[in-house]
Each structure stands twice: as structure tokens, then as C-alpha cells.
């Protein structure tokens, strides 16, 4: 059956023509598919590389053939091998006037190169030219390349043209131009600081995709300086309200939710603008509550929006009704015993609300413990993060002991280090007694000694040397003795 499908597909491709025509490439893909070991696959690929190396430098290669060679090179690199000998040919293809060749060239260079590659300098001129093309598809290909290949140094070469494209008649171009400016901002904030008004204006673009794209740079700008954008709170709330009321075209619906990805972006922005600001937050309560009510609780994307509503509620100036809504969302997530994803999101949301309402964890105690004991490591770790944020003097012993037990079972050294550091931090901050502190540090060092920060060890030594400030000398020296025997254990094993 599988074979028939393959043959059928080959026949279909042959009649479609285009790239799929070359028997050589089909044979290559098939033989790699049939390879029984990585070693065999590597042999085949290396042989292909040798072939391409020879043939790509032959004179007078037809453009169609070169296009195919480049695609084969993309394939080879995708499998983890080096095809850098072919990069220059991909670059040359971007200079071609034939849009098909040019487009393949752009695809290849965006896959082969990164923004710091030496060959970029050979592409910048072409990009500049293509950004001015009459054919919007050429402009789009160039903008895609810009988003991948332009760095701080090359921004000035393309910036003026990209800024103009923000007002291009085609919405696809405007959208990509904004994403490009966003990327410029990330590489070099000062390069686009004079263009902020462009982003503000495009918020009211007719096309929802363009408006949605504008939310990306605005989010970054607001993260850095929320105060300068407080005047937009009302606009953002209004847009969010309209989106939630299905006022955008149906093509933006996703699984019956109206433009949920745009809703999520807006909720994140509102969260930033409402933080610590009662007045700004007051504009938001109604719309966030409404969205929570309207969201589809049976779909992933509906729950993703709900999760974002909780994050927003946790970030902005607290409101009792909103807190209640957030708490019931969390309850619902945690009750889904057959959905690890939702329980995970529930635990995450819970840890965001902890700061505002420390008691909320107790309300969900049983669910939290279930997550802690779940066989799913991802869920377990998320729950340990929650515990970490819930720690105070009254529960530090239980939490740290439990965390150390878990730490001992971890094989992944990256994560083990993180957990060990957390234990140390909590012990230092909340230790109820010096005795417990020493014992705890001992356990951590015993099981993760090679991973723990040197500074921590020094601090501990220092502490012991200085003494703990106990009035009773006997107690002090008792502690010193136990401390020494503890350290002796891990220093000399």
C-alpha cells in the first residue's frame, strides 16, 4: 500500500512538473528514506555532496538545473551536513530577474545564512533593488530576507525603503514591513526610535493582519517604557472588545474563536499597561471579564485565551471580581484530571496569582499535590516552581525537603543545578534554625555538590568560621563540629 502511494505520487509529480521532475533528486530522497542506519544515510549524503561539488562549478548550467542543485543543497544541510560551498550560488540566484529563480535564491539564503555571514554584503544591494520592485511578490520575498539577514550594520541600507513599504497598497507588504521594523528595533532600538508614530498609526490599519503585526513592536516598546503609551489603553481595550464581538472578518476565526491570537497579543499588552496603575486597569476589567465569559472552554485555543486573561488579571491592579474569575478558571484547569496540558497551565496560572492572594494555593491544595506526584516530569517541575514561589518560614522545611528528594532523582544536570540553587536560596532566606540550615546544605552538596556555585560553598564556610552568633558556646561549637564533619564528607570523597 505504501509503495503504491509512492508510485502514485511520483506519477502525479511527473505530470505536475516543476521541481519534482528530476529523477536524481527522487532517487536521493528515496535512498535516504530506505537507509537502514545513520551511517548509511551519511554515506549517501556525502556522495551527493561530492556530486554537487563537481557539477555546480560546471560552465553554462541551465537556470532550472541550478535551481534544483540549490534545493538539493538545502536538503543536504537540513540533514545536518555542510553545504557552504554552494552558498555563493544561492546568493547569485537572488540577483536573477526571473522571479522563480530569485525566489528560490532567497529561500536558500535565508536557510543557509545568518545575519552575520560574510556573504550578506553581496545580497544587500539586491534586497534594496527588490524592495522597490513593481511586483509585490518580489517585495515580499525581499522583506522575508530582510527579517532574517539584516543586522545592526545593514539596517541603514534598507531602512528608508522599508519605512515607505509600511504604506504599500498590498496588505501583505505592509504587514511584512512592520515585522521588519520590529526586527530592526530588536537589533538596534535607536535605529527606529523616530518611527514610533508609524506603529501607532498602523494600529488603525484597515487590514486586521497589519493591525495584528503592529502589536509586536508596540509590545516591545511598551515593555521598555509603558508610560509613553498609557494614552493607548482606551484604544487597545476598544480593539479587543470589537475583536471579541466578532467584528473582524470570519477568516480570522480559529476554531470558532474570533481572532484569538490577536486577543492574546492585546491581553499581553494590557497586562503591561495596567501593572501598578489603578486608573489604566479600571478600563480593562470589563473587557477581560467578558472575554473570560465568552471563551470556548472546550478548545485549546479557547483555554489559551483564558490563561492569558488570568495572566492579565494577575499583572494589573487587582480587582476582586476579576480575581474571582481568575480563580475559577484555575479551578477548572486543575480539575481536568485527563488533561496534563490544562493542569500544567493551571499550576502556572496559580503561581502568578500567589503574590496577590497567598491563600489561593491552599484552596487548590489537593490538586497541587496530585500534580506534584504525577508521573509527568514537565507537570512535576512546574509544580515545584509553584512551591518555590509559595515558600515562607512556616513551610520552608517541608518544601525544601521535598524538593531535595526530587532533585536527587533528576539526571539532567542543567535542571539539577537549577533546583539545587533554588534549595540553597530558600534555605538561606527562610531557614528556621541553623541546625536545619547546615543539614540541608549538606544534603544539597552531597547530591549536587559539583553543580552548586562555588560562591555558595565559600559563604557556608565563612558562616561556620564566624560562628552563628549563638550565646551558648557549647551550642556554637556543637554546630561547628557537625558542620565540619558534614563538609569533611563532601570535600574529601
Amino acid at each position, binding site marked *: 500500500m505504501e509503495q503504491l502511494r509512492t508510485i502514485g*505520487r511520483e506519477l502525479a509529480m511527473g505530470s505536475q512538473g516543476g521541481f519534482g521532475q528530476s529523477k536524481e533528486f527522487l532517487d536521493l530522497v528515496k535512498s535516504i528514506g530506505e537507509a537502514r542506519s545513520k551511517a548509511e544515510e551519511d554515506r549517501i549524503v556525502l556522495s551527493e555532496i561530492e556530486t554537487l561539488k563537481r557539477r555546480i562549478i560546471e560552465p553554462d548550467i541551465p537556470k532550472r538545473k541550478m535551481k534544483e542543485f540549490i534545493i538539493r543543497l538545502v536538503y543536504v544541510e537540513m540533514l545536518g551536513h555542510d553545504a557552504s560551498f554552494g552558498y555563493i550560488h544561492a546568493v547569485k540566484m537572488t540577483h536573477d530577474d526571473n522571479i522563480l529563480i530569485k525566489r528560490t535564491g532567497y529561500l536558500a539564503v535565508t536557510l543557509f545564512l545568518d545575519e552575520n555571514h560574510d556573504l550578506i554584503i553581496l545580497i544587500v544591494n539586491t534586497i534594496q533593488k527588490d524592495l522597490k520592485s513593481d511586483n509585490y511578490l518580489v517585495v515580499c520575498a525581499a522583506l522575508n530576507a530582510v527579517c532574517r539577514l539584516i543586522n545592526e550594520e545593514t539596517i541603514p541600507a534598507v531602512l528608508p525603503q522599508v519605512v515607505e513599504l509600511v504604506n504599500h497598497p498590498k496588505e501583505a507588504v505592509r504587514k511584512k514591513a512592520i515585522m521588519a521594523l520590529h526586527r530592526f528595533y530588536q537589533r538596534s532600538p535607536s535605529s527606529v526610535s523616530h518611527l514610533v508614530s508609524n506603529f501607532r498609526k498602523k494600529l488603525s490599519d484597515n487590514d486586521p493582519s497589519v493591525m495584528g503585526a503592529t502589536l*509586536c513592536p508596540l509590545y516591545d516598546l511598551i515593555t521598555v517604557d509603558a508610560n509613553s503609551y498609557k494614552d493607548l489603553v482606551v484604544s487597545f481595550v476598544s480593539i479587543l472588545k470589537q475583536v471579541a464581538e466578532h467584528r473582524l472578518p470570519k477568516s480570522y476565526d480559529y476554531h470558532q474563536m474570533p481572532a484569538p491570537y490577536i486577543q492574546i497579543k492585546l491581553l499581553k499588552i494590557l497586562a503591561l499597561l495596567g501593572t501598578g496603575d489603578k486608573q489604566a486597569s479600571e478600563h480593562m476589567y470589563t473587557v477581560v471579564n467578558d472575554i473570560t465569559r465568552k471563551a470556548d472552554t472546550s478548545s485549546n485555543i479557547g483555554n489559551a485565551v483564558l490563561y492569558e486573561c488570568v495572566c492579565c488579571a494577575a499583572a494589573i491592579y487587582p480587582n476582586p471580581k476579576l480575581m474571582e474569575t481568575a480563580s475559577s478558571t484555575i479551578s477548572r484547569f486543575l480539575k481536568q484530571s485527563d488533561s496534563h496540558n490544562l493542569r500544567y497551565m493551571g499550576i502556572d496560572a496559580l503561581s502568578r496569582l500567589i503574590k496577590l492572594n497567598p491563600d489561593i494555593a491552599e484552596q487548590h491544595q489537593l490538586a497541587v499535590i496530585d500534580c506534584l506526584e504525577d508521573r509527568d516530569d*514537565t507537570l512535576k517541575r512546574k509544580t515545584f516552581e509553584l512551591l518555590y514561589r509559595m515558600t515562607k518560614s512556616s513551610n520552608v522545611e517541608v518544601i525544601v525537603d521535598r524538593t531535595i528528594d526530587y532533585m536527587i532523582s533528576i539526571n539532567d544536570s542543567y535542571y539539577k543545578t537549577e533546583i539545587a540553587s533554588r534549595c540553597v536560596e530558600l534555605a538561606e532566606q527562610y531557614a528556621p534554625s541553623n541546625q536545619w540550615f547546615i543539614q540541608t546544605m549538606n544534603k544539597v552538596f552531597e547530591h549536587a555538590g559539583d553543580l552548586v556555585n562555588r560562591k555558595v560553598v565559600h559563604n557556608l564556610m565563612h558562616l561556620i568560621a564566624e560562628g552563628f552568633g549563638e550565646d551558648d558556646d557549647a551550642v556554637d561549637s556543637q554546630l561547628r563540629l557537625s558542620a565540619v564533619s558534614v563538609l569533611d564528607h563532601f570535600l574529601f570523597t
Partner: protein
Amino acid sequence: MLIHIGCWVCVVQIHFVILINRQGKVRLTKWYSPYTQKERTKVIRELSGLVLNRGPKLCNFVDWRGLKAVYRRYASLYFCMCIDQDDNELEVLEIIHHYVEVLDRYFGSVCELDLIFNFHKAYYILDEILIAGELQESSKKTVARLIAAQDSLVEAAKEQESSISNIIAQATK
């Protein structure tokens, strides 16, 4: 040490997209953060190990080197997107699904073979959905329209070529 640009605060920052099959064979990789060729091989090996060995009923999210890998299995293929710790994992799970739905619509019930023999098209489509590691287009209709416009160029060019070669064939008879 595998590095990534984690300092950009973004609406969603996807560091890379990887498609592998059950045997760990790579079907597509797209890198939005800097990874050398060597690092990429390591990333793929480590993530494949993590994702392929995970049980079916567990979270679709996995911790990996301080980042989160969001993955989902579709028949014989695993789609994986890597994001920062603080991002909305459920949203990214649906961004993966959005991409798959577009592929499905384009290829008509997409299967692994489609992606093997037309991986360049899978890249063109991905480039309309994500750009610079962020969600670019959430409307399937818009993505389909753009890809169709690009495809009609291909058709037009082929027709032109075949008509030219016909003319030449006639002329040289």
C-alpha cells in the same frame, strides 16, 4: 553551551521549528535564533530523544535547557517549536496546529511523503505563518492566497517555457 537570543522580550519568540518522524529523521528545520551547524545537530539529537520517548498522554510541553519545547504528533510526524519559559505554551501548541491545518489544506490531506518531496513548499508556507520567530499571519485564507499567487507564477512560467520550447521545436524542424 547552546546559546539563544533570550533577551528580546516578545509577544512570542520561537527559537526554532523542527519536524521529525518517528525514526528521528529530519523533515524540516527552521532556525530563528543563532545556532551553528554543530549546535543544530546537537539540538536535534537531544530534542528527538526527549520528544520521541515521551508517553502519549503527557503534557505537550517539555523542559529543555531552560527553554520549553512544545510538540505535537501528527501521524508519523512530530512538529516541535521551541520557546522561552514565560511564553503561552497552549498558544504555541495551536500555532503548530495552525501550520498543520494550512499544510493540510494546501496538499489536500497532507502526509509525510508530501513534506518529503515538497519540503521547499513547506518552507514557503512556514515563511508566511512565522517571520523572525513570531506569528505573522493567523488567517488561513490570507496564507492560502499568497501561496496561490506564488504558485500561479510557477504555472505562468512553465506555460511560457513550454510555449517557447514549442516555438523553437517548430522553428528547428
